[in-house]
């Protein structure tokens, strides 16, 4: 299987606090990987290291056969290949819905205005936000904002989509609409790396589930293995704690 991103011996410390300890991990083309784990286990940090919003303290991130942590590597070009969806949406407040999806294409990818708008509309339709192109972010509900954020990331036509708890900041009644969009995307063969607390969703959509605990990958495997038949004691405990709450 072709690896899109291959992470080797990744380490990250904040001061003396070692948050990621020697992570080996890869994402294959067309695969949907869900990362689960308790709060503070380093899931967000791992995702943010992948697109270099955090600078790794050590290790390698291999993309297209090259270590992008090597000196002189064009980080911005690499980032266009990764679409990021944040927990807090982070839509550009000064742009309306359409321009949120256009501005990256025109400034970074140098696409023409018309082409960019066409592509933006294509993805806004997919997330069913094409009727709101004139709205400013502050005029949208959380679920709508997150769907626009997904369209914005997709408009760059990345190789991988990264999601960091995309539904955690949403009111419960809006979680469904965002998860539905993500499910649909997973069905199209898009490569996705998703940090989530939605266990049902992970069970249903993931090709592989990664369980993180205290900065290491404690266990990974197919969802039915992880959820029904976990091998590690800490995975069992985590699942017991989380599933009881549901």
């Amino acid at each position, binding site marked *: 299987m072709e690896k899109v991103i291959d992470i080797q011996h990744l380490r990250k410390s904040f001061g003396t606090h070692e948050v990621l300890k020697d992570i080996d991990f890869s994402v294959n083309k067309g695969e949907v990987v869900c990362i689960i784990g308790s709060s503070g286990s380093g899931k967000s940090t791992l995702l943010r290291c992948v697109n270099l919003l955090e600078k790794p303290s050590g290790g390698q991130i291999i993309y297209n056969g090259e270590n992008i942590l090597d000196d002189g590597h064009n980080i911005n070009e690499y980032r266009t290949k990764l679409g990021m969806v944040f927990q807090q949406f982070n839509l550009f407040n000064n742009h309306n819905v359409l321009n949120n999806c256009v501005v990256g294409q025109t*400034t970074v990818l140098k696409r023409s205005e018309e082409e960019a708008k066409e592509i933006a509309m294509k993805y806004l339709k997919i997330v069913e936000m094409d009727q709101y192109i004139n709205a400013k972010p502050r005029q949208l509900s959380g679920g709508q904002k997150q769907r626009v954020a997904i369209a914005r990331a997709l408009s760059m036509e990345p190789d991988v989509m990264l999601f960091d708890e995309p539904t955690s900041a949403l009111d419960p009644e809006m979680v469904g609409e965002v998860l539905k969009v993500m499910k649909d995307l997973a069905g199209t063969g898009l490569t996705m790396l998703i940090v989530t607390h939605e266990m049902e969703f992970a069970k249903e959509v993931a090709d592989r589930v990664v369980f993180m605990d205290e900065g290491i990958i404690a266990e990974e495997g197919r969802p039915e293995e992880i959820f029904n038949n976990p091998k590690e004691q800490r995975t069992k405990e985590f699942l017991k704690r989380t599933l009881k709450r549901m």
Partner: protein
Amino acid sequence: MSFDWIINIISNNWPMFLRGAGMTLYISIIGTIVGTIIGLLVGVIRTIPMPDVGVKRVVLKIVNIVLSIYIEIFRGTPMIVQAMVIYYGSALALGVDMNRLTAALFIVSVNTGAYMSEIVRGGIVSIDKGQFEAAHAIGMNHVQTMKNVVLPQVIRNILPATGNEFVINIKDTSVLNVISVTELYFQTKSISGNNFRYFESFFVACVLYFIMTFTVTRILRYIERKLDGPENYIMYANQMQVETPEDIMRKTKYNDVKQH
């Protein structure tokens, strides 16, 4: 009687008053605009993330120090003194006899720039970190992030402070009379020097200054409200895929604005 004198002074000297007021406005406008541009540039440079190592880091460090010195000196000394030092200093040191108006524009711009730099930097720092992260995640570099995402928001947020600088400039250009720039205060001084009616002459100047600052304040408040845009947006339900918002004005208004 004073009132008659005021009428008298106005009718005899109105061209001079107007020219003085015009000069005051001109210097304040140019000074504020150029100062704001300086402030934006300095603000962007001072917020460039510091590289970990290398030549770039050294250069950036030096540039930051120079900019800090500029800001501290111009904020820490009176403009009236800056005017004297720059005007007579340039004559002495460089042997150039600066045009008075050029000197005035230079002094006000650079002085305003120092204040605006700090205002802009404050504006940039106060923008939500998520805006930067989203822009970086999409592949934008520092300048692209600033231009497309951050500065438009900063400019909106610092507009009140910019207006404030403008009003301050209208009043403070009066100190430029020390280098004989023919702004309103200088003109009034000349007028009263001829008629010896100091109170009446300066009363007229006072009214003119107030009219200018008051008008500017109102206009800026209006622009602020304009920039915030309409509260409602327009639902877009068209088969044509790519249209400008203006093309869609005829569409139904979407009034059920959701607040998050």
